[in-house]
């Protein structure tokens, strides 16, 4: 339904050209949850912004690749067409609801605005629908709250309001960029439950961008792991956690402190730092930090090696890594 293929994005800055995305490809089908997992600088948010067409150009430039929604190419589409797809085809929610919601308009207004502009609804109908949506996202006293301003909502409520806004035009795909990172863990659980429920009811595709392996394990059908602007591994959730196929994924999992473990011994760490996107190392971008790097890793960029149906890893030694 939504397909991203070989996307390349550059950021042209005074200090040089940062290669933020270096050939990112993934796809989402109806009713499916794809988690895009990565740390800061991996490019996970930039990919989503490129799909939505909200990258700041300059300094960001899409230099190659394609984004297709139901087969229609979006990158070369007209601004009007992109706007039409935005919100009713592919919608997005962000990490910080406080800055994503306009503080000078009521929450109701912000939801109704889209309905009136894009669906031509009357003010009364839009108001009714807005209240329905706030109800859908479990905001109590929706009828009163629809007239309130974002700052009058608590953090979790604001996130729900943002979800309501995103759902107003019944999008087929929802991209959630770190939707719960700034929230308390009990609120996070509520929001994730909500997203899952909505997704099931509407057979919506969900792209969940996060750095939290726990959230990913609970929610995702498939996972794409990103590093330095590339997808280094893609697999279904169970396979990924059972036997990761890329050294980065494996190292990441081993470095996590576990809620269910009383072990207090030193955590396994990944030495070094993520690379600056202005100076990505040659060959495999992970090789300076990889515990099993060999000579070839510093020279050849690894191709995406298939490891089974719907699985793949960009490592010269993917098959060995998978076997453990």
């Amino acid at each position, binding site marked *: 339904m939504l397909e991203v293929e070989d996307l390349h994005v550059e950021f042209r800055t005074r200090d040089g050209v940062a290669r933020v995305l270096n050939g990112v490809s993934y796809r989402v089908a109806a009713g499916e949850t794809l988690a895009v997992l990565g*740390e*800061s600088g991996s490019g996970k948010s930039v990919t989503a912004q490129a799909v939505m067409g909200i990258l700041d150009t300059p300094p960001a430039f899409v230099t190659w690749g394609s984004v297709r929604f139901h087969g229609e190419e979006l990158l070369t589409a007209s601004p009007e067409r992109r706007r039409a797809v935005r919100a009713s085809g592919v919608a997005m929610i962000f990490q910080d609801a406080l800055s994503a919601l306009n503080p000078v308009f009521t929450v109701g207004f912000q939801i109704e605005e889209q309905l009136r502009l894009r669906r031509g609804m009357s003010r009364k109908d839009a108001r009714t629908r807005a209240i329905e949506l706030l109800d859908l996202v479990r905001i109590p006293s929706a009828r009163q709250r629809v007239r309130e301003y974002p700052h009058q909502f*608590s*953090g*979790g*409520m604001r996130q729900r309001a943002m979800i309501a806004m995103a759902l107003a035009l019944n999008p087929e795909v929802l991209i959630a960029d770190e939707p719960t990172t700034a929230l*308390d*863990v*009990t*609120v*996070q*659980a*509520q929001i*994730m*439950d909500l997203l899952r429920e909505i997704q099931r009811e509407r057979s919506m595709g969900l792209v969940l961008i996060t*750095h*939290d*392996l*726990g*959230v*990913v*394990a*609970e929610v*995702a059908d498939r996972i794409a792991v990103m590093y330095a602007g590339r997808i280094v591994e893609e697999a279904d*959730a*169970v396979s990924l*956690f*059972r036997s990761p196929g890329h050294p980065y994924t494996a*190292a*990441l*999992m081993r*470095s*996590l*402190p*576990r*809620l*269910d*473990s*009383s*072990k*207090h011994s*030193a*955590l*396994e*760490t*990944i030495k070094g*730092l*993520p690379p600056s996107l202005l100076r990505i190392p040659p060959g495999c971008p992970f090789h300076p930090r990889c515990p099993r790097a060999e000579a070839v890793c510093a020279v050849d960029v690894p191709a995406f090696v298939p490891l089974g149906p719907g699985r793949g890893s960009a490592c010269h030694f993917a098959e060995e890594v998978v076997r453990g």
Partner: protein
Amino acid sequence: MAELLEVRDLVKHFPVTRGVLFRRTIGQVRAVDGVSFSLAAGETLGVVGESGCGKSTLAQVLMRLEPPTSGTALFEGEPMFPLRGAALKAWRRDMQIVLQDPYTSLNPRMTVGDIVGEPFDIHPEVAPRGSRAGRVRELLDVVGLNPEHLNRYPHQFSGGQRQRIGIARALALRPKVIVCDEPVSALDVSIQAQVMNLLASLQAEFGLSYVFIAHDLSVVRHLSDRVAVMYLGKIVEIGTEREIYEHPTHPYTQALLSAVPVPDPELRGQRDVIRLTGDVPSPIDPPSGCRFRTRCWKARDVCATEEPLLVDRGGHPSACHFAEERHVVP
């Protein structure tokens, strides 16, 4: 054995004022509302809670960056809060803090060497003349940084490295207790592990005690010997790490633990799911009796009239009239 640090009934209220010319106090934010705990030498006490529970305020008051409203704290048996002048300054050598944000906790106009060396400038009796430079290099080395980089400025380092600089600064005076206020929350996952390992190894090497404040329960479990769970300014449950994580008795602790996602997809649908409803009440006007009752599935009439005390219920202290063990963590 006497405890290194003993806190009794610590209270910190912030006045809510109105008016520009003549400020009137119309209420109090009851950030910390009667907290008691102890810390033994070489031990790590983890303090967990969600936003608004008062754990950061607790850190500020413990470090005497904010005066307490009431309550006492004994450090090595001596009262901490009445200290003044030279005695206060001497006490500061024993208790230090590591802050959360690596981007604002270092003065951007000072070199790393000056930042880590500042403790010696303030307390010249600790480092005899001429040994300062050597000590600074040693500290940088101990935290895993290149000592040659002491002429660099903070903005030339990554977040994880800056946090190490902050740790080096806290370590300089060889304190006995370090209060860690969310030291890894602002770091990437792969860097968190590095800093956590560093904190653990420093504790072993220098015989430190930590008050480790964080919201990430997995991180806290990994580093702590004992854990205190806070809610709206009070400790609702406290015990050893095993007791809290494997035998929690307070409903809030249970809800908190059940909400933490575990990185194991095969546990999907198998976990004990507890979901809280409603929002956290305001610390200005907390609920009467048990503060958690507005969101608790066990709440009865007695919960509104009588505040449950933090006393031993089923093995370790828990502040609930209906405390009951429930195994939530898989």
